[in-house]
């Protein structure tokens, strides 16, 4: 509504100007109203090489016309539009149109942000980032050098990091590692702005944990014995890298079972039994009611029985219950 109001203001002003020798601009405006933007472009480009070039409104109209020409064969129409608005502002020395021109600029520059969002939705994160950088650069240059992008950066780079990691999940080898590095890089950018956000902490932590676990789980079965400690060391370095992020995520949300699982997995992989048991106990306490419920539904569920045996033997230590479930499992297995 505001934009329409602004355009009407220009039109009225241009009507008034017509009698004072704004021929090309008026003609351009007529074409613009009729949505004949090619015609409008021809007149407005003539206007800016005539005496009409000293009128702020001529440049404002040029900005609007070129904005409409975006997507046509005219290259860089958006940039021409922005440059026109900037020129319009330079000529508006009294600041009569300042607010209006700033709105035109803002609504044009925001298209770079929209490009970034569309590219991200279409799975093109590199292109998306370029558009976002352009958006910020132009916004700072033409609208507000001091604008605080913190909120926007957090939202955008979280989404960008997420997209890279999403793509990494469907990739293999070097490409996967490259995508993971990019995803982690952008999540770290988010944490540099605010380290207390759960999701980037969790996503980075779980990514490192998965990378380490994958190294072990996907070892070539014919790996030479000398290679085993090398792979183990690589995996453990990733578990170590995961832990600070996972611990921060745990502090932020102590109820998330997936966070506790990942922390437990890291300590397990690091052969750190003391810490492993601490987190496995927390995990088991949370999971126990679910397991017991499952066993109620299916009293011969061997996976659940094995879990209960482990829990009562290793973490929640209850000799009686351990024996009970152990014997139950033995009975089931001997009947098979």
């Amino acid at each position, binding site marked *: 509504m505001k934009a329409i109001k602004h355009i009407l203001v220009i039109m009225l002003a241009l009507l008034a100007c017509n009698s004072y020798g704004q021929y090309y601009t008026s003609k351009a405006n007529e074409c613009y109203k009729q949505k004949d933007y090619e015609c409008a472009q021809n007149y407005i480009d003539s206007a800016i090489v005539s005496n009409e070039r000293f009128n702020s409104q001529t440049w404002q109209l040029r900005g609007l016309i070129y904005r409409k020409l975006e997507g046509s064969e005219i290259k860089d129409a958006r940039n021409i539009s922005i440059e026109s608005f900037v020129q319009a502002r330079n000529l508006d020395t009294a600041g009569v149109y300042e607010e209006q021109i700033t709105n035109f600029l803002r609504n044009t520059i925001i298209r770079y942000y929209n490009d970034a*969002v569309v590219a991200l939705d279409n799975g093109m994160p590199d292109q998306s980032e370029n558009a976002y950088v352009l958006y910020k650069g132009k916004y700072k240059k033409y609208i507000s050098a001091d604008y605080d992008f913190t909120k926007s950066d957090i939202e955008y780079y*979280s989404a960008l990091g997420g997209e890279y990691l999403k793509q990494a999940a469907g990739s293999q080898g070097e490409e996967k590692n490259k995508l993971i590095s990019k995803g982690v890089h952008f999540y770290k950018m988010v944490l540099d702005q605010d380290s207390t956000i759960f999701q980037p902490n969790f996503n980075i932590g779980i990514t490192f944990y998965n990378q380490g*676990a994958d190294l072990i*789980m996907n070892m070539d079965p014919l790996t030479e*014995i000398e290679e085993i400690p090398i792979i183990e*060391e690589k995996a453990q370095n990733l578990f170590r890298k995961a832990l600070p992020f996972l611990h921060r995520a745990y502090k932020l949300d102590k109820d998330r079972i*997936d966070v506790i699982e*990942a922390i437990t*997995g890291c300590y397990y992989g690091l052969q750190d039994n003391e810490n492993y048991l601490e987190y496995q106990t927390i995990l088991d306490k949370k999971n126990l009611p679910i397991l017991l419920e499952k066993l109620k539904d299916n009293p011969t569920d061997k996976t659940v029985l*094995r879990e209960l045996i482990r829990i009562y033997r290793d973490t929640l230590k209850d000799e009686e219950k351990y024996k009970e479930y152990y014997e139950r499992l033995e009975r089931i297995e001997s009947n098979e």
Partner: protein
Amino acid sequence: MLAAFILSSWAMLPPDQTQMRDTRSPVKALYLYNFATLIDWPSEYRKGKFVIGVYGTKEGVYENLKTKYEGRSIGSQEIVIRNFTSSSQIDRAHILYVTPTKSSSFPSLESKFKNESTLFVTEKEGYLNKGAAINFVVMGTSQKFEINKTNAKKHKLIIADRLLNLASKVVE
């Protein structure tokens, strides 16, 4: 086109969420396979199937061995992976890995198999002195193994120098 588009919320979701995985068992399974390639059994054990047994639960090491090694070969012998939950089930095996939960029954097993060329692999502190030829140990954060050459010899097993050199401890 004048308003800012909204970022989809999916982008904030975890990328590749997973449950905790057993990262210790694949390492032990790989070591066990390598033991099979670096130890010599007497000639009467070099025919038929090559049996690797796991005494304990079916998860973990057994599952890893079963999925990764069953059907492969040691020399001309096809590998078979077997799981034993009670000592009475155990018969001839080239390698018998005794899981920590079954360690207490190891001494009786060892005496039952004293005349067999079975490589006993345990995972309990001090078990090299109780008859095991190889015992898994953790040193620092690393999975290692220690060897008792005398116990191996008792079962007519010859351990390659390459394996001895990698052991964290060798008892002569």
